[in-house]
């Protein structure tokens, strides 16, 4: 592969990961924690109403997971394109 082409392909895959991960990021915080909070509150898990739980707990846990997933994906991607050295 030509260097220029390789860089383009790498960047494209990176953008695809970003889009998916940021979509989830938006969904758990602004979606579950704010916009659909009322609807989710009908469901209860233990003492937590689900929407409330997402707003004050769940979204934060997902954020942490998202970053570590991104770290893994990118480390793999770097390797695939030989950008890890």
């Amino acid at each position, binding site marked *: 592969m030509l260097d220029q082409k390789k860089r383009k392909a790498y960047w494209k895959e990176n953008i695809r990961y970003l889009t998916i991960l940021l979509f989830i990021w938006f969904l758990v915080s602004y979606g579950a924690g704010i916009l659909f909070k009322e609807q989710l509150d009908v469901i209860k898990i233990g003492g937590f109403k689900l929407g409330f739980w997402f707003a004050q707990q769940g979204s*934060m846990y997902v954020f942490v997971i998202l970053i570590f997933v991104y770290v893994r994906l990118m480390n793999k991607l*770097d390797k695939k394109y030989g950008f890890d050295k």
Partner: protein
Amino acid sequence: MALINNVLLIEGLSVQNWTYILVGLTFSLYIGIAIWSRASSTKEFYVAGGGISPLANGMATAADWMSAASFISMAGIISFAGYDGAVYLMGWTGGYVLLALLLAPYLRKFGKFTVPDFIGDRYYSKTARLVAIFCALIVSFTYVAGQMRGVGIVFSRFLEVDINTGVIIGMLIVLFYAVLGGMKGITYTQVAQYCVLIFAFMVPAIFISIQMTGNPIPQVGFGSELADGSGIYLLDKLDGLSAELGFNEYTHNSKSMLDIFAITLTLMVGTAGLPHVIVRFFTVKRVRDARKSAGIALLLIVILYSTAPAVAVFSRINLIETVSNKPYSEVPEWFKKWETTGLISFTDKNNDGNIQYVADKEKNELEVDRDIMVLANPEIARLPNWVIALVAAGGLAAALSTAAGLLLVLSSSVSHDLIKKVINPKISEKNELIAARLSAIGAVIVAGYFGINPPGFVAAVVALAFGLAAASFFPAIVLGIFYKRMNKEGAIAGMVIGIVTMILYMIKFKLGWFDEVLPNKNEWWFGISPEGFGVISMILNFSTALIIMSFTKKPPKYVQEIVENIRIPN
């Protein structure tokens, strides 16, 4: 409980003595670290030599990030705001996702010292650099003045000195290790400070969670049933108590959902745009370390942030149960102690000798400062003296670590961005290091001055530092990385429009300087509060940049190559 009482008997030391011991120990630790890790080059002073491990950087970032406000005030704010408090929880953590995915790896690859460095080089213009320096100074100053005040308040409450003496002690300590150690010294002290502050926050929370719910994990505890065997969930009980006393139901919103959305987004984007946070990612060795340390930082932050809403619920229930409709003559000792500090006060309006704590302002007899929820929590729960003292050491660690990080940004803005890059590019390495140390001293003095004589508007605008960062840096950096075609004209116009609209909105609706009286909430544009307006300014920044760009010429070839280059990790 038996165990706790035994510990109480054995120790015998007063809270005051424990406080001196723990604060003394932690302070000697910080100073020791500073002497051991002093900076000998500008690279060490600005970015700790660029060789910090991801774990150390993650810990330092977490301590840098969590200020006195996170440690002392946040749980209390949530305690009184209920669901609405989620804006801080999500806002101040979600920003790290943006940071890790959109900014940190690329800025690390770019590999200079400061945010204005990136803006100045990427937008090939001295004007862009100057605008960025101006924004960095405004954002960091609004933020640091609040921190120095926080240091003073923590000192005064725990060591019983007055606030000004507290500010001066804090200034001297920070001065010592920031000036001597630069970024290198700050990083390693922050690692120690993270350990102190997280231990200090978690110990009381775990004790109280066990007391109230029998569950040692606070995050699970506050969704559990009460330990008294009644089978009632804690949160249901709190909703019930709140409704009974006329407060908003704890798990429901009182702000409009649109405003909650806007504030959360402003805080997230602002977090990602704060120079003192961004600059931490210049200190690691490789791009992959930058990504990883963002993850570690957020994990370490979330340990505290996910505990805070639990503490909020525990302490709120504890407070209501201890005081509501109880005779004033029978209040516990902590009540009297904190009454003398003015953090809690009682006026017997109906002269019945009982404390009426209700939402109705006419009938309410109890004023509670929200900070008390963390500060007095261990006493309310009757925890041993060393735990109470630990909270003091933790609060100081939180305030000092953030203040030091900010001071470093201020000093490098002056010595590196302004003196080296604009005024005198020929300055020698040695002189630049001297300039950096002198500007750190200058920054401490100015910050200390504002800590001692806080202009009325400082407290009001600290929360708006996020709006300012969201309105100025975030769009310029993101466009700089993700849009090769973005040119200097667009970026500069965007930053100027963003920061100017944010400042104007702040002056009009937060400070009320344009009108006789502070305008009413109903006049807010789109119903968005000043705290949430950063989002609107950010959108204005983005759109202005894109429009102006389309009329002006492409960035030069070599700049496009810079962009190509930062996108690739090696």
